[in-house]
């Protein structure tokens, strides 16, 4: 790579110049990146410094919006909803994905291909459509579970009640993403050299010991990645509650999740500055929790 410039025939610059080439290759992506990621971030921050008032129009407000978010019970109530949601849903989803990946990898089952494919299929369903289908399944009028309960003279299950809603949402998300996470784990398992299994077998380790002592540590980067993706996705939850809101407007209010809150602030109240501040703080909460999580797990691992 280094000596090639000496042997390369001299060329007139322009499109073929080697100095210029990387910038030209990078340009299309970078332009879009700046226009639709960097600029919106900067603009959101700028907007968040202004207050939208009905009478006086837009006024510079300094950090006032951030002070307001810090003490906004609606915002933190939404974050708290999702923390509860995530504490229950993420371990179940990732635990199932890991279990299925290990079982499918060990090969002691029939019809492996069918399971791999079948588990992943829900991921191909847009989350909006998934929420619509599950909404019909949960339905208190003609949902099949209500029908079955009625046929057995049991009280119909109240999937959409205030107490059950968070689990009903968690079920939709679990349904959508177990297969996706399973494929990630499965791929990582396949990358573990087969002689490790052989060696530990000769050493007399059981399959369970092999999974716990060899496979799990080697899977750790993949697991960490899926946990961070899951924290990220959980705190951004929007589509599923937005659609379920049509079924249970009094259960899912407009600040049920932070993104629902930002959406209703921007579209219904035209409080763009405050909506931007809410989005920004949400972004900080998400990046911060991913970072703290990585830090804690790294420390724990190095202490061992």
């Amino acid at each position, binding site marked *: 790579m280094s000596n090639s410039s000496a042997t390369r025939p001299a060329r007139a610059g322009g499109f073929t110049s*080697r100095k210029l080439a990387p910038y030209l290759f990078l340009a299309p992506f970078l332009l*879009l990146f700046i226009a639709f990621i960097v600029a919106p971030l900067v603009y*959101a921050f700028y*907007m968040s410094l202004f207050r939208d008032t009905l009478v006086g129009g837009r006024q510079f407000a300094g950090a006032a919006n951030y002070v307001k978010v810090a003490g906004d019970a609606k915002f933190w109530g939404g974050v708290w909803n999702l923390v509860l949601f995530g504490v229950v849903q993420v371990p179940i989803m990732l635990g199932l994905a890991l279990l299925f990946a290990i079982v499918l990898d060990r090969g002691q089952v029939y019809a492996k291909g069918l399971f791999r494919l079948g*588990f992943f299929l829900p991921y191909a369903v847009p989350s909006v*459509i998934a929420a619509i289908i599950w909404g019909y399944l949960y339905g208190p009028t003609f*949902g099949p579970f209500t029908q079955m309960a009625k046929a057995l003279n049991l009280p119909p299950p109240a999937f959409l009640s205030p107490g059950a809603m968070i689990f009903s949402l968690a079920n939709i998300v679990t*349904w959508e993403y177990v297969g996706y996470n399973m494929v990630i784990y499965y791929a990582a398992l396949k990358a573990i050299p087969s002689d490790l299994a052989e060696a530990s077998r000769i050493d007399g380790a059981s*399959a369970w010991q092999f999974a716990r002592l060899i496979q799990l540590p080697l899977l750790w980067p993949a697991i960490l990645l899926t946990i961070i993706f899951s924290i990220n996705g959980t705190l951004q939850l929007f589509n599923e509650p937005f659609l379920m809101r049509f079924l249970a407007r009094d259960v899912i209010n407009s600040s049920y999740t932070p993104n629902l809150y*930002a959406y209703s602030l921007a579209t219904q109240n035209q409080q763009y500055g405050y909506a931007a501040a809410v989005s920004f703080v949400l972004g900080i909460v998400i990046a911060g929790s991913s970072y703290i999580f990585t830090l804690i797990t790294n420390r724990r691992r190095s202490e061992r």
Partner: protein
Amino acid sequence: MTATTDIAPFKAARRRPGERRRSRIFLTLLLALFLVYSFVPLVYLVLSATKSNGDLFTTFGFGFGTEFNLWQNLSDLFSRDNGIFSRWMLNSVLYSTVAGLGAAIFATAAGYAFAKFKFRGRDLTFGLVLGAVFVPQTALVVPIFLLLALSGLSDNPLGVILPSMISPIGVYLMRVYIEQGVDDELLDAARVDGAGEFLIFRAIVLRLVAPGMVTVALLSFVGTWNNYFLPLIVLRSQEYQPITVGLSTWYQLAQQGGGGGQVLFSIVITGALISIIPVIVVFLLLQRFWQGGLTAGALK
């Protein structure tokens, strides 16, 4: 996916065959249980799409209706509101295809620059791009909408297509792919032969990394097809909306019940079925590329 590290004989080797078969059956049943869970909503969707609106309410959800009404439902679906559903369908196909192709080409070009060139600010730029993987996408939607309004691009399909072409994870994947799959000596040989940088990229690099590009294109295609929040906010006119946004409007109408909302139930269900078919077909046809993309994402 061909070299399977089959460690089935593991502990089982020391067990009696009967015990081994029992554990095999038990594990298969466990997985079958979850398979049923995965399929239940899809089976319900298919069954419901074959029912008339009346049967939807009066017959058992996991059973057949009194008549096979699928063709009528389809004709209702595609004729409702002057056939706007086929327009939504076309929009989704168009946005997803353009976004998928664009994302693949731009991510490959950028990945190539990062992988094979030394230039000022390379590590900083790459760090920024990687950092963007962790920027919550939905936090960007409202600011993007406001910026588009400023630049006169609100309610314009470009407002959905252009942001969907950015795939930071794609740039990362292509960088790794090109570092491992494209030989420096091959590129230098081409340079010695007098090939220009653009020709080298087009004739050598693109050809060598085509499978990786398919992965990135697929991820972006499906991501755009499934996207809801961005088009919901950016596209106000019905004729620009993709299938997810359009269908959710009908769903809302059906739920509110007024204005012939009841009739909409079977239309929404049939529309939901139609809307997932393209993604499932794409996924089944190109399975190996999906797994390739997810693998690379998980291992590094």
